[in-house]
């Protein structure tokens, strides 16, 4: 399948304010994105996500490396590359608050050279999809934060580009609106067939919407894999033992020495042992430790893990062996 975004060894550093010292925000990032993919670009604050998005949008010039959007080098032909991308940036209003919803939509489409007639049909269809038909003549300033965010995504969609960058689209929204935006993104992906790059701290959104996750930390890609794979990899490594007796001091020391464990007890007084293991054979080692002192094992469960836990494991530097090889 063709790549709609190609990034080759991109680096970017900034001068620290008031000193000659430079901070390297992006330290040689490379990856490709296929047409129609929905990719979550994740990382802790200051990881380099927004810098990366701004470089892909041509708003920031990289120190070195190349970025191609639909085969167009976005440094050599910035304006031609922009024909293929639209963005909703975090921390920006992205809209004119003194104009109405419809005026904003028409204005930003016109700024891309579209006439009112060219966007009319699509605008009407999207107004229904976004449930904004009744609000089309309202001044944006009078809308809720969630509505404003929907209008900003609408503007990006109306640009009719192959790629849409969404930087923190659910930031600062209440749970209900966040769910609404999540549903909307799923609908967009399904009905509009767009390539979406989603930068967010909202892990349920990633788990729910994205196919693939690129995790950036300290300016480097630490993981690039399918969300489903990541969930499976971490899920298969986390086990919960339910024991009918408490562990001895010797067993506890042995387990803590070799594994990441969490020991607790449930309401029925049973001992719960949560263990993260690196290799399949580790499971046998644990059973051996338990059997040595004849501790009865009631059951062994795989722990259900969500993407938030996967993300935390990764940014803390914990990586399953298979995944480390895939990066």
């Amino acid at each position, binding site marked *: 399948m063709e790549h709609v975004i190609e990034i080759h060894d991109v680096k970017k550093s900034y001068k620290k304010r008031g000193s000659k010292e430079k901070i390297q925000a992006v330290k040689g990032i490379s990856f490709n994105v296929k047409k129609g993919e929905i990719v979550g670009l994740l990382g802790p604050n200051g990881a380099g996500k927004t810098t990366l998005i701004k470089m892909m949008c*041509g708003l920031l*010039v990289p120190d070195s490396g190349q970025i191609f959007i639909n085969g167009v080098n976005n440094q050599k032909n910035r304006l031609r590359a922009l024909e293929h991308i639209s963005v909703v*940036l975090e921390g920006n209003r*992205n809209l004119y608050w*003194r104009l109405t919803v419809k005026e904003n939509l028409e204005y930003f489409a016109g*700024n*891309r*050279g579209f006439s009112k007639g060219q966007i009319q049909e699509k605008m009407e269809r999207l107004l229904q999809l976004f449930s904004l038909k009744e609000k089309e003549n309202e001044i944006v300033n009078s809308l809720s934060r969630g509505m404003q965010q929907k209008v900003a995504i609408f503007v990006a969609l109306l640009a009719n580009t192959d790629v849409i960058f969404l930087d923190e689209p659910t930031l600062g929204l209440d749970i209900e609106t966040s769910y609404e935006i999540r549903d909307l993104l799923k609908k967009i992906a399904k009905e509009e067939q767009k390539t979406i790059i989603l930068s967010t701290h909202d892990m349920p959104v990633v788990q729910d919407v994205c196919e693939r996750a690129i995790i950036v930390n300290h300016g480097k890609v630490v993981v690039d894999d399918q969300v489903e794979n990541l969930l499976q990899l971490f899920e298969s490594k986390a086990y919960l033992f339910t024991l009918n007796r408490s562990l001895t001091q010797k067993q506890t020391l042995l387990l803590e020495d070799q594994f990441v464990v969490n020991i607790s007890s449930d309401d029925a007084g049973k001992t719960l042992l949560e263990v993260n293991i690196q290799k399949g054979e580790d499971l046998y080692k644990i059973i051996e430790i338990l059997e040595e002192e004849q501790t009865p094992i009631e059951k062994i469960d795989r722990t259900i893990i969500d993407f938030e836990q996967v993300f935390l494991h990764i940014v803390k530097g914990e990586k399953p062996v298979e995944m480390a090889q895939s990066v």
Partner: protein
Amino acid sequence: MKWLNLFKVNLKREFILLKRYLPNTISLVLTFYLIFLGMFFGIHVVGNPETAEVNIQYALVNYIFWFLAMSVMNGIGYTVQSEVQLGTLEQIYMSPLGAWRIFLTRIISSTITDGLIIVAMLFVSMLTANTWLNLDFISILPALLFTIISMFGVSYMIAGMAIIYKQIGSFLQISQFILLGLTFVPVSVFPLLELAPAMKGVDMVRQVMIHGFSLSDFTLFDYSSLILNAIVYFVLGVIVYLRCERTAMIKGVLGQH
């Protein structure tokens, strides 16, 4: 066609905001008129009564050009500054038509709206002063057009500064006084002024409106100087702006406050 669509939405936006910020528009009109009244009565009270009419005509023409120059030359810089404050500058930069073209259509649109207000106020002022300038539009328009193009160039240069430094309010205030000096001094008094942006055109329009010159009264040198001034300043302005834009993109300060 894309250009026309771009121009249409920016002109429409200008009219919408003019209407939506009506108190601001009214205060602009009132300020224009009140300053004119101040000048008018000042000339009558302290000036020589024999030359009062010519003095008022000079004051009026120079004043409208000062007003126009302020609005055009500071226009793009002011737009950049307000887009940064609104948090929409980076969206402007996402247009495949180029931000400089969007700003060009913005400044043309605001020149049209401000121009309409200025023309209306000019008639009100002439009525108040009971003095009538030679409004030979056929002779005025060519010189005015190239004068405005030259002003656009300066506007781009100021916008270049705004895109890097963002807060240029103090500079814009100082520039008002520089423009006041430039527009009120005739080129005949200080010929080197002809090299300054837009000043040749201002002088030619002044000749038409006050001394009744027509198109045929100007020499080929006048027209060449007028056109060259416009082209040089406009091209230079766009080049300076694009260089500043690139610098802002390298430094990462494009949308920063």
